[in-house]
C-alpha cells in the first residue's frame, strides 16, 4: 500500500464524483456525486495524515471536518429536495426554470 496508490484511488473517486454531480439530472443523484467527491477528499486527507505528515493527532481533525461537511451537505440537501418538491413538484433539474419561490 503505497502513498501514490492511495492518492490515485482518491483522485479516481473525486473524478467519479465530478462526473456524477455534473451529469445526473435528479437532485438526489447530484447529492450522491457530491458525497463521492467528499469521500475522495477524505481519503486523500487521511492518506496525507498517515503517510506524509507522520500521524500527528491534529491531522485527523481534517477528517472530522470532512465528515461534518458530508453530514451538513446531506441534511440540507434533503431539506431542499423536500422543499422544492413541495412547492414545484420537481425532482429533476430540468423541471426548474427559475429559482423564485
Amino acid at each position, binding site marked *: 500500500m503505497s502513498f501514490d*496508490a492511495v492518492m490515485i484511488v482518491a483522485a479516481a*473517486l473525486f473524478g467519479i464524483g465530478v462526473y456524477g454531480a*455534473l*451529469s445526473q439530472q435528479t437532485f438526489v443523484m447530484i447529492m450522491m456525486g457530491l458525497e463521492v467527491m467528499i469521500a475522495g477528499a477524505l481519503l486523500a486527507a487521511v492518506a496525507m495524515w498517515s503517510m506524509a505528515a507522520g500521524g500527528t493527532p491534529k491531522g485527523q481533525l481534517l477528517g472530522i471536518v470532512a465528515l461534518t461537511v458530508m453530514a451538513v451537505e446531506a441534511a440540507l440537501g434533503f*431539506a431542499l429536495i423536500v422543499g422544492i418538491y413541495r412547492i414545484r413538484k420537481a425532482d429533476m433539474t430540468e423541471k426548474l*426554470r427559475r429559482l423564485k419561490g
Partner: protein
Amino acid sequence: MIRDALFYVFAVGAVLAGWRVFRADSMVRAAYWLLAAFVGVGLILVLLGAEYLGLITILMMAGEMTIMAIFMVMFMMNPAGLNPMTMVHQHRAAVVAGVGSFLGLATVGVLADFPRRAADATHTTAELGTELLGDSMLVFETAGVALLATMIGAVAIASRRGRFGDAQDGSAPPGIEEPGEERGPGEGAGEAPEHEEMEHMHHGGGAS
C-alpha cells in the same frame, strides 16, 4: 503483504462501486452502491491507521444511504429499476470534467514532492480523543454547533409551515404566472410589516 492485498481489494471495490452508482438502473441500487463505495473507503481508512474515522464513516453512511434509498422511493420514478434508463445531461462535458479532474489530481498526488513520514499507528484513536477534548476542542465544538445549526435550518426549510403562513399557499407550478402578484421586483421580502404577514404568504418564506 496481506495489508497490500486488502488495500487493493478495497480500492478496486470502492472505485467500481462508485462508478456503478451512476450506472445503475435502479436508484435504490445506486444508493446501496454508494454505501458499498463508502464501506471500501472506510476500510482503507482503517488500514491507514485511522480506525475511528473509518468506522464512523461506515456508520454514518449506512444511516444516510438508508435515508437516501427511502427518498429515492418517495420521489423518483422507476425506483425499482424495472426499465433500463439513463437520466443524464451534458454527458460528454461531464465525462471530460471527471476524467480531467482525475488525471489532474492523480498527477499532483503522484508527482508532487510530499514529505514521507509514516505514522506510528498504535494509539491513534486515543490520541485523537485526547486531541478532540484538549487542544482542538474549538474545532470539535465548531463542528457540533455547525451540525446543530444545520438541523435547525433543515427543519426550517423542510417544514410545511413557513414564516409567512402555510408554505404551500400561493406557490405555482413552474412557468405559470400567478394572477395576484402583489409586489414589484424591487421590494425585498423582509420589508413586510409585521401585521401584514398573513397576506404575503408565499413571499420570502424562510429566506428572509
